[in-house]
């Protein structure tokens, strides 16, 4: 049984007491301690900047050409914080409760409460950095609502919140680079973890520009490398997002937790053809004002504007009157799939539903007309005024939709369909964010800890920044205080040589296969298996098939993949091959985990376990645990469990009706 090391005492005092009693490292000693940070998204950039400010010697790595490119930048809608600026009854407890409930009671109470506590500090910190959050005319911060909540606690910067938060963290990071506390390595990828006497002591990084392997020592290693959604091939992740660093750590002893908990986001632009390389999200914030519907009649080929109001099925409003279009993501995604599978889908593929802004445009138009005291206004004027308001709120998203589809969403409803977006699973960490390898930490989406089986909208940014700005600066000291007298370990140590040799052998093996099929073709086939059998709905038979198929595909990959070029130059195909090879192992583990979890919860929907009206049916007596998998060898894992104890919240069937 795994020990999460949640501090004792009442829930709301745990973090305060922990901070008050945790061991510290004095400033003179911090200068002697080296920390490796892999990944420079919200979690990595905020951690590297904060630790640099504290005086540690930090080395940060990213595979992109600049830390500002990390995929946190693409987050659109917002960031939650329990500020209660709207006086609508929000509190730390409510944010905590909503997150636990939204996660379908598969997250740790202690971690989630801490997350809710520090959420308010994050907003203050970001404002101080100059993040231009949306403001009201009085000059104060503006909020909007998001799925799974009944208060307005989401802070935002148009539809570019992730960008603005990341630029804030990036600027803080670059400031530390200038001050010499952080050494930044761009276009570098971690491909091995170095473990010495049971402790993480460094990494082998590959310089993607030259192909050279480099050894880097650290007293501690922080993985802030994001999620593994690209195992599905098509996802809203960036093309380069990958599981490699986390997977290498997994193979060196870090347990991988809840890999089957993946989030399918309900509102993405549908697939348009086989050429598709990625999917684009339309922010959840659009569900604030947009209404989702399908025709009441099956296979209705009429244009949306020709379908009268009484022949439309606003199925979310019908099924979930209390939350309506703002139900959590897992619920909204499954409901869309249910309608499309039943033959009510729209568009040429029939794998889409409408997201309609016509009502919102009218509503805003009337408010504007009244605000401006316009008196007698025509219907056209109201529509024009309404469009202006919608443009200010969601303009960049509407533009993006138009560029991709060629349709004007101000005139015709958007077509949307669920797509892979986020992974709640990740490296198992304890309360201090430490993995099962001493000295190895995982932050942000790369760990598993705070979102249970389903993440609420606007909570990923919150967690990434919480871990980096306000958690790791405290918890890391507790480990490093024991390392003060130990000095650096030379990278000539045999463990470094061995890790480098392993990495080198693997790269040479990959390039020498010289088969017939491209890396991309293998990735597409893997994605299809996982999407079909371990996607929005899973069943035991399908999962067993998928496991066999992924194993066969992995063998085929290692005997027939074709990688052009050489290893000592910039070779994006080689980089991709290493990542796909790791996805081919992770994909199997996801299916094994999904098969093991004989219940439905959050994003994990096993068809065998549902209520009479098609809602997820949890099994709290048999599955109230975190699955943490230990890797023995390729294709062989051992399951460890961490029991989840609910001291404050009483788990019940989630209801959004």
């Amino acid at each position, binding site marked *: 049984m795994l020990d999460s090391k949640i501090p004792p005492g009442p829930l709301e005092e745990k973090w305060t007491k922990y901070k008050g009693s945790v061991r510290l490292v004095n400033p003179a000693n911090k200068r002697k301690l080296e920390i490796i940070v892999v990944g420079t998204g919200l979690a990595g950039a905020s951690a590297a900047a*904060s630790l640099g*400010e504290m005086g540690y010697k930090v080395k940060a790595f990213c595979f*992109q*050409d*600049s830390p*500002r490119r990390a995929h946190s930048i*693409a987050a659109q809608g917002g960031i939650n914080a329990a*500020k209660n*600026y709207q006086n609508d009854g929000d509190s730390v407890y409510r944010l905590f409760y909503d997150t636990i409930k939204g996660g379908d009671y598969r997250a740790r109470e202690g971690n989630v409460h801490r997350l809710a506590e520090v959420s308010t*500090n994050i*907003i203050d*910190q*970001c*404002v*101080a*950095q*100059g993040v*231009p*959050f*949306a*403001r009201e005319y009085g*000059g*104060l911060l503006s909020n909007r609502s998001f799925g799974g909540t009944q208060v307005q606690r989401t802070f935002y*910067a148009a539809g*570019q919140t*992730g*960008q*603005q938060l990341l630029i804030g963290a990036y*600027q*803080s990071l*670059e*400031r530390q*680079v200038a001050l010499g506390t952080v050494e*930044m390595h*761009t276009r570098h990828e971690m491909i091995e973890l170095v473990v010495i006497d049971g402790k993480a002591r460094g990494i082998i990084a590959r310089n993607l*520009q030259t192909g050279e392997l480099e050894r880097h020592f650290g007293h501690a290693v922080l993985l802030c490398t994001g999620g593994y959604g690209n195992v599905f091939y098509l996802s*809203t992740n*960036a*093309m*380069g997002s990958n599981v490699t660093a986390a997977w290498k750590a997994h193979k060196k002893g870090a347990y991988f937790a809840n890999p089957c908990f993946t989030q399918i986001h309900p509102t993405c632009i549908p697939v348009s*053809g086989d*050429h*598709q*390389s*990625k999917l*684009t999200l339309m922010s959840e914030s659009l569900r604030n004002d947009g209404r989702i519907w399908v025709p009441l009649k099956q296979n209705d080929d009429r244009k949306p504007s020709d379908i009268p109001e009484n022949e439309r099925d606003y199925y979310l409003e019908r099924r979930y009157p209390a939350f309506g279009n703002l139900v959590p993501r897992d619920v909204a995604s499954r409901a869309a799939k249910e309608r499309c599978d039943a033959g009510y889908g729209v568009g040429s593929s029939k794998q889409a539903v409408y997201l309609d802004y016509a009502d919102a445009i009218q509503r805003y138009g009337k408010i504007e007309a009244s605000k401006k005291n316009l008196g007698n206004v025509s219907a056209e004027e109201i529509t024009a005024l309404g469009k202006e308001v919608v443009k200010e709120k969601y303009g960049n998203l509407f533009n*993006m939709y138009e*560029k*991709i589809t*060629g349709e004007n969403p101000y005139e015709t409803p958007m077509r949307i369909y669920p797509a892979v977006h986020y992974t709640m699973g990740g490296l198992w960490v304890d309360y201090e964010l430490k993995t099962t390898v001493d000295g190895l930490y995982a932050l942000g989406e790369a760990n598993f800890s705070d979102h249970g089986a389903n993440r609420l909208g606007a909570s990923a940014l919150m967690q990434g920044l919480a871990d980096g700005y306000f958690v790791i*600066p405290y918890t890391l000291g507790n480990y490093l205080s024991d390392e003060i007298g130990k000095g650096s370990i030379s990278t000539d140590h045999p463990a470094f040589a061995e890790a480098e040799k392993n990495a080198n052998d693997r790269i040479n093996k990959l390039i020498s296969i010289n088969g017939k099929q491209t890396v*991309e*073709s293998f990735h597409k086939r893997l994605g299809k298996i996982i999407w079909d059998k371990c996607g929005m709905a899973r069943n035991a038979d399908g999962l067993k098939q998928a496991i066999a198929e992924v194993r066969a595909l992995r063998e085929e990959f290692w005997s027939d993949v*074709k990688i*052009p*070029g050489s290893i000592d*130059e*910039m070779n*994006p*195909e080689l980089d991709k091959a290493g990542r796909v090879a790791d996805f081919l192992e992770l994909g199997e583990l996801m299916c094994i985990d999904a098969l093991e979890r004989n219940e439905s919860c959050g994003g994990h929907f096993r068809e065998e376990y549902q209520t009479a009206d098609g809602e997820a049916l949890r099994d709290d007596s048999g599955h109230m645990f975190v699955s943490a998998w230990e890797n023995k060898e390729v294709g062989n894992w051992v399951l460890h469990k961490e029991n989840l104890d609910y001291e404050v919240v009483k788990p019940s069937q989630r209801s959004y009706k």
Partner: protein
Amino acid sequence: MNLNLKVWRQKNSKTEGRFESYQVNDISTEMSFLEMIDVLNEKLIKDGGDPIAFDHDCREGICGMCSMVIDGRPHGPWQGTTTCQLHMRAFKDGDTITIEPFRANAFPVVKDLMVNRSAFDRIIQAGGYISVNTGNAVDGNSLPIEKDNADDAFAAAACIGCGACVAACKNASAMLFVSAKVSHLALLPQGQPERKQRVTSMIAQMDKEGFGSCTNTYACEAECPKEISVMNIARLNREYLQSSLSGK
């Protein structure tokens, strides 16, 4: 549709480059421009050739990693659009498309269409931040900001750091990029304490990196995928003058 491509190929920064011609067939108008290159690369790999290296990541127009000059225009023919968001609807059957890397002394070619834009990071290091350590912040609402200022700061902060402004400019000037950051921070009360020092340091670093001077042709604004306004350059000039007069 079928297209002819003339693509810049260059092994690395030390070798000379050249254009090579390729034919791509059966391209759907639904494809993005980068998906069209994916198709070509898959074919090149299968035929034993060398795929074209290009930078890209988010493919939704926000990370700023994709670049390319397409038919003489950074990010191609669509207004306010990154290369990754450009779709093949923009072209017609039989077109010949010329694809080059961003060209500037300060952006050396890494390979083919990839360039090194780390000069931008170093300009930010010179002062493109507010010096506030984690934990120093006051309550977010204790600092009201006039909505117009907040909106203008946001509009400047929307810069994605792609470098199209440099590639578009005949002088390879980075003024739009630098001015966007200077404006973003100068418009906010949080940015005031370092305001004068910031603009001088960033300009000094910009010059040191080898970017050219601004001669007000506004090509940068015309080609910026995020439509960052040249008003920011005017603000930068005012900031710089004030800073110089105050001796900072």
